C-alpha cells in the first residue's frame, strides 16, 4: 500500500470528530434501511433481490443486444447515442460539444460516472465552467474534494465545515444552520441553472425498450438540470441498461430502500428527450454518452461479471466495518467501500492498487445487504488470488512462498510444530506483568512481522501450551 494511503488511513482513524461523523452517518443509513426492508414493511423484499439479480444478469449477458436496442429507440426520438472508450474520450466529446454550441456554463447533477471521468476538471481546462448542483457535491466542489460516499458525498463534513467553506468561497454572513445553508445554495445555484447552456446528468438506469434514462434524486437538481438547459447530456456506464420500463417496478423499490431507507426517492425522472413538439419546456437536444472505461474488460470475466450489476446504492459502504473506520477518502478511486474494492482493480487493472482487495475483513455484511445480491466477499477472495498469482509471475513473493512451505511442513508434523511452539514461547519476551507484546527483539522485528505488529499486539505467551493442558486434562480424567 502506498504511504499516502497509509497516512490517510492513520489520519482518519486518529481523528475523533471524523470517526464520529462516519460512524453516526453510516449508522443512520443502516437504521433507515432496516426499517423499510423488514418483512413487515416489504414482505417480498428477498424475492425482489432475486428478481433484480436475474434481470441484471440477463441484461449483462446480452449487453450488445440491449445497447443496440437502446440506441435504436433513442435515435428514433431524435436523441443521439455517443460511445466513449475512456475518460479522455468522454470528456473531449463533451468539451467539443460545448465549444460547438458556444456554451460557457454547464450544470451537473450528482453522478458517480462523471466523477469517475473527472469531467469538471477537464471542462475547466477548456474554459467551460461546470457547476455541481447536488447540495453535497456543491459543497465538495467548492472545497475541491472527492465524494466521500457514493450517495452521501459530504458525509464527513459538519455544518461548521460547510459554514467555513461557504464563507470562504461565497462570501456573505457566516451561517451554521443547515436550513439556511441550503437556502444559500438554492439561491446561488438557481441562477446557474437558468443561465446554463448544457445540463449533464448521470443515469441510474438506461431503459432499452423505451430509449429512456431514469434519474433518481431527492433535491430536484437533476430535474432542473435535465429540464432547464437547451441541451441534456446523460453520462452512463455501459452496465446501466435494463430491458424494460416495467423492470423499474423492481429496481426503484430496491434502490431507494437500500440507499437512504426511503420507499421511493422524492423524484424519479423517466426521460426520453428531446422535448416533443407539443411540449412546452424541456431540452431541445439530447445525448446519451455510453462509457466503457474498463467495463468491457470486466464483462469478459464471467466469474466476476456480476460486479457490474451494482446499482450504486451505497448500502455495502454503510455496513462495512472497514469503510466505517477508514472512510471514503482512504480508497484510491471515486468508488469506495466494498464495491469500490472489487470494481476499482477490475476497471483500472489489478497492478494499480493490488492492496485494495485486502481492505476487507470478509465479514460478509456487504453481500448480505446488496440489493442485487453481488457476492462481494467471493470476488475479493478471487482478486486476492489473482494478486498472488500476479506476484508469483513477477517473482515477487519467493520469500513468502518459502515461509508458507515451511509453515505447511511444520503443520503436518505435530512433534516439530510443538517443539517450534515451545521454542517461540521461550524466545518471546515474557513480561512479568503479563503485558501484551508490542515489539519483538530487534533481530525479528522487521519486514512483514513488524508490519503485522504495527497494528496488533501479541498476547503474552502462556505458561503452558494448549497441547500440554490437553494432555494434563486427559491424564486427570484417566486417573479419576
Amino acid at each position, binding site marked *: 500500500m502506498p504511504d499516502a494511503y497509509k497516512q490517510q488511513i492513520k489520519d482518519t482513524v486518529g481523528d475523533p470528530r471524523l470517526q464520529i461523523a462516519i460512524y453516526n452517518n453510516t449508522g443512520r443509513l443502516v437504521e433507515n434501511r432496516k426499517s423499510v426492508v423488514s418483512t413487515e414493511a416489504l414482505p417480498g423484499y428477498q424475492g425482489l433481490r432475486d428478481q433484480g439479480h436475474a434481470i441484471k444478469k440477463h441484461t449483462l449477458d446480452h449487453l*450488445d443486444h440491449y445497447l443496440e436496442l437502446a440506441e435504436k429507440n433513442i435515435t428514433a426520438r431524435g436523441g443521439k447515442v455517443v460511445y466513449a472508450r475512456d475518460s479522455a474520450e468522454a470528456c473531449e466529446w463533451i468539451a467539443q460539444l460545448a465549444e460547438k454550441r458556444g456554451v460557457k456554463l454547464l450544470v451537473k447533477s450528482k453522478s458517480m460516472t462523471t466523477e469517475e471521468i473527472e469531467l469538471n476538471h477537464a471542462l475547466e481546462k477548456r474554459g467551460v465552467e461546470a457547476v455541481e448542483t447536488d447540495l453535497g457535491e456543491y459543497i465538495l466542489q467548492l472545497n475541491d474534494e472527492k465524494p466521500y460516499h457514493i450517495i452521501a458525498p459530504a458525509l464527513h*463534513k459538519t455544518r461548521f465545515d460547510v459554514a467555513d467553506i461557504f464563507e470562504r468561497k461565497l462570501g456573505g454572513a457566516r451561517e451554521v444552520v443547515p436550513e439556511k445553508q441550503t437556502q444559500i445554495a438554492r439561491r446561488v445555484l438557481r441562477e446557474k441553472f437558468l443561465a446554463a447552456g448544457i445540463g449533464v446528468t448521470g443515469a441510474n438506469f438506461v431503459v432499452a425498450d423505451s430509449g429512456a434514462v431514469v434519474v433518481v434524486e431527492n*433535491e430536484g437538481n437533476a430535474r432542473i438540470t435535465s429540464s432547464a438547459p437547451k441541451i441534456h447530456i446523460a453520462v452512463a456506464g455501459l452496465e446501466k441498461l435494463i430491458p424494460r420500463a416495467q423492470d423499474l417496478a423492481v429496481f426503484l423499490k430496491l434502490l431507494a430502500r437500500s440507499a437512504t431507507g426511503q420507499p421511493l426517492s422524492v423524484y424519479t425522472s423517466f426521460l*426520453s428527450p428531446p422535448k416533443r413538439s407539443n411540449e412546452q419546456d*424541456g431540452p431541445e437536444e439530447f445525448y446519451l454518452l455510453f462509457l466503457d472505461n474498463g467495463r468491457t474488460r470486466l464483462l469478459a470475466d464471467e466469474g466476476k461479471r456480476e460486479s457490474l450489476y451494482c446499482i450504486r446504492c451505497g448500502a455495502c459502504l454503510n455496513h462495512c466495518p472497514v469503510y466505517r473506520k477508514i472512510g471514503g477518502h482512504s480508497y484510491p478511486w471515486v468508488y469506495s467501500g466494498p464495491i469500490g474494492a472489487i470494481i476499482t482493480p477490475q476497471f483500472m487493472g489489478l497492478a494499480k492498487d493490488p492492496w485494495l482487495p485486502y481492505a476487507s475483513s470478509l465479514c460478509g455484511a456487504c453481500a448480505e445487504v446488496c440489493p442485487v445480491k453481488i457476492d462481494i466477499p467471493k470476488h475479493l477472495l478471487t482478486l486476492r488470488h489473482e494478486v498472488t498469482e500476479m506476484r508469483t509471475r513477477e517473482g515477487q513473493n519467493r520469500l513468502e512462498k518459502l515461509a508458507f512451505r515451511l509453515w505447511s511442513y511444520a503443520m503436518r508434523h505435530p512433534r516439530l510444530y510443538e517443539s517450534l511452539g515451545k521454542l517461540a514461547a521461550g524466545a518471546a519476551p515474557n513480561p512479568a506483568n503479563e503485558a501484551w507484546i508490542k515489539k519483538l527483539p530487534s533481530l525479528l522485528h522487521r519486514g512483514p512481522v513488524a508490519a503485522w505488529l504495527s497494528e496488533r499486539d501479541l498476547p503474552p505467551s502462556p505458561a503452558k501450551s494448549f497441547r500440554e493442558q490437553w494432555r494434563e486434562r486427559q491424564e486427570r480424567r484417566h486417573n479419576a
Partner: protein
Amino acid sequence: MPEAREAILSAVRTALKRSKGQGIPQPPALDLSFIDTPVADRIAFFRAAIEKLGGTVSEVPGIAEARGRAVELIGARSTVCSSAAIVADCGFAPPAGDLREACASADCGITSADYALADTGSLVLFSSATEPRMVSLLPPCHIAIVPESVLLTSLEELFVREAMPAERSSAMVIITGPSRSADIEMILVRGVHGPGEVHVIFVAGH
C-alpha cells in the same frame, strides 16, 4: 465517435462470446400483481405516506371546493398554473408571458397529475402541452389538484397501465413528497431545489 462505437460493441460481443445480431432469450418474467383496494383506502394510504414526508392531502367533493381549498393554501402568495383541464376548471389560468420566467418567480405552482400512487404518496406527471415540467419544479410550493379516479395503488399498477411511458411524453416524473436533502450532517432539510411544500387536493367524482 463511430470508431469508439464499433470498438465497444465488438469488445462487448467478444466478452460475451456473441455474434452480431444474435438473438436473445426472453428477459425474466415480472410479477406486477397488486392488491386492488377501494378508493377510500387508497386515500388513507396516500395520506399516511405523504404526511410522513411533510406533505398534505385534502379530499373535496367538487370543483368549487377544490378551488376554495387551493385559494386557502395559496393565501397571499403568487402563483403559476399549468393548463390541465381540472386546473382550468378551478378557474386558474396559465401565465400569459414567458413560462420559465413565470415559474422562476412564482411562489406556488398549481398542476394536476396523471396518476397518484397510494402506497408511496406519489404524484405522477407526464410533461405535455398542458403540463409543463417547470410548474411543479421551480416554485417553492407545489399544489396538485388531482381527480380521485387516477389514484392507483402502487408502482406495479403504474407500470401495468403505462408500460411504455416514453411513447407518451419526453418526461414522466414520479414526485414523492417535498424536495429534501440530508447532505449536511444527515439533518433533514426541505425545499432544496424543488418545492419544499407539496399539497395534494383529491377531487371526488372526477
